[in-house]
């Protein structure tokens, strides 16, 4: 097949011209050196390039270079009708697409003023699939983190268990990862018959497995030695840097937008917000962040059980229920600015919309991604540590480069 027209002809120096180093060799002191980590490196979780200024084994400064996965989300969004942006939203944080869709759909519904008319069954299904996806995302976070610092087995266990969730979501939406399931004003389709039973089976299957995971990974002596007291993020720095999600909670603040804003039906559900308590080291270290994710899985399971009760009780499946009933034929919000935020597995996902009231496409759609902001704290906490700990810190931030680069 002729591919000449799209072949990239590389010249020496091309790469360094597109992403120049921040530190220059001329200004180095005699004992210092620059180490380039990534963009193609298994422990950078995608395409993250770190330029590390080192003094022997000690990291003096880190300069992250991002943008290798930039897909012009905001430019695309300015050229598409609101409903057609949803597949692009999926591709932001591609391991937690349901949560992204939920946040986006909520924002557009608020602009249209229909957020209180959404049927309760639709909201419960949304929360159900979002929480399932949250568990899948935390599985990836914990599994790959274990693998980063040398524990292979938990990764395979978690991938095996994540597969159950992906199959459930595939059953509901038709896709394994990028669902396009939550639509503005409703859902693509009601959950399939028998879905609730399979979910219950999954909950009873996974609960003992989680205990197993805690024993093999979280409470493992080697894991604790690698993560406790490493990468301590003090609370004041976390807030000043805008860090959210399990990272902020790991630093000891009980702050979860599902509780604070109580959006969707989260205010009707009973769950706790776990925080880091410094059980193994200092508050806000890598172990705390991972432990918070672990505890959040239990909370998500609680939410799922309650949703299933509602979906088989008060808001039962019925013949005349149409999840697409409220979907507007034409989405044209009146002129306004709106900022919407929601808690996705990594933190606060925000969308800023500006609508001019005259067209069906957003005038401006900005995505405030949590991985982007969480990653920006890395140069602050990665000073004076060992290079092996740098890997441990990157893993504990849980970045998804699709969301960082958008």
């Amino acid at each position: 097949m002729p591919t000449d027209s799209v072949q990239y002809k590389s010249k020496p120096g091309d790469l360094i011209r597109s992403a120049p180093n921040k530190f220059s060799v001329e200004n180095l002191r005699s004992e210092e050196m620059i180490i380039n980590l990534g963009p193609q490196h298994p422990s950078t979780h995608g395409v993250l390039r770190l330029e590390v200024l080192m003094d022997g084994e000690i990291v003096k400064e880190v300069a992250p270079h991002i943008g290798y996965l930039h897909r012009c989300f905001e430019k695309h969004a300015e050229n598409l009708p609101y409903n057609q942006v949803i597949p692009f939203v999926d591709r932001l944080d591609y391991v937690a697409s349901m949560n992204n869709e939920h946040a986006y759909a909520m924002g557009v519904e608020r602009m249209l003023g229909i957020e209180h008319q959404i049927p309760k069954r639709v909201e419960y299904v949304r929360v159900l699939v979002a929480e399932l996806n949250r568990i899948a995302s935390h599985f990836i976070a914990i599994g790959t983190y274990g693998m980063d610092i040398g524990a292979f087995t938990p990764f395979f266990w978690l991938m095996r268990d994540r597969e159950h969730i992906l199959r459930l979501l595939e059953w509901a939406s038709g896709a394994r990862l990028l669902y396009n399931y939550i639509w503005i004003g409703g859902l693509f389709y009601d959950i399939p018959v028998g879905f609730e039973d399979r979910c219950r089976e999954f909950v009873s299957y996974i609960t003992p497995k989680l205990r197993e995971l805690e024993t093999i990974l979280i409470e493992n002596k080697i894991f604790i030695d690698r993560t406790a007291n490493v990468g301590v993020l003090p609370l004041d720095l976390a807030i000043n840097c805008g860090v959210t999600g399990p990272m902020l909670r790991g630093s000891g603040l009980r702050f979860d937008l599902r509780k604070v804003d109580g959006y969707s039906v989260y205010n009707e559900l009973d769950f706790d917000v776990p925080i880091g308590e410094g059980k193994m080291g200092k508050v806000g270290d890598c172990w705390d962040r991972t432990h918070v994710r672990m505890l959040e899985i239990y909370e998500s399971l609680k939410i799922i059980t309650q949703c299933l009760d509602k979906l088989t009780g008060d808001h039962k499946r019925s013949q005349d229920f149409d999840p697409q009933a409220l979907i507007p034929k034409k989405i044209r919000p009146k002129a306004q600015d709106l900022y919407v935020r929601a808690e996705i597995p990594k933190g606060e996902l925000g969308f800023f919309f500006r609508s001019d009231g005259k067209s069906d496409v957003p005038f401006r759609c900005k995505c405030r991604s949590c991985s982007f902001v969480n990653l920006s704290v890395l140069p602050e906490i990665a000073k004076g540590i060992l290079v092996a700990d740098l890997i441990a810190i990157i893993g504990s931030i849980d970045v998804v480069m699709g969301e960082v680069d958008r």
Partner: protein
Amino acid sequence: MSTFDQIILVAGESCTHGQLVADENATPKAIRIDVRDLTAVAQNLKENSVTYFDMLSCATGVDNGPDAATMEVIYNLYSIPFDHQLMVKVTVPRDRPEVDSVCHIWKTANWHEREIFDLYGIHFRNHPDLRRILLPADWEGHPLRKDYKHQDYYREVKVEY
């Protein structure tokens, strides 16, 4: 007195160059201030015990197009202890877009401002490290401007798809 009125009072104290305008057609509610007052207002909003906006959630650039000849930077503030939100808007002329950086107040602003610089070409004065962040350093132009025309070739690869 509602929270928003109190916030307006606090922000108004630091407005020396221009008038503060409340903008109710926004969620959360917004204030529009003169761009020269930005750092003073931001500092006051963060440190005043009534407002205490300790977190900068988001900073957004907006281009109003060549006809309006203005660009905007919009800051979304949030106060964790009081649980209130605020939008702060500043407008800059399109031919000379310059805004003072708020990096020294909220470190979040660092990467957000770099992103706005990258995609809109708005210059942030006193920013510690104003480089492109998402696009390659040798990319031409600022893609989210309304009159942006992409280059024909980037490294012998056709940009048009």
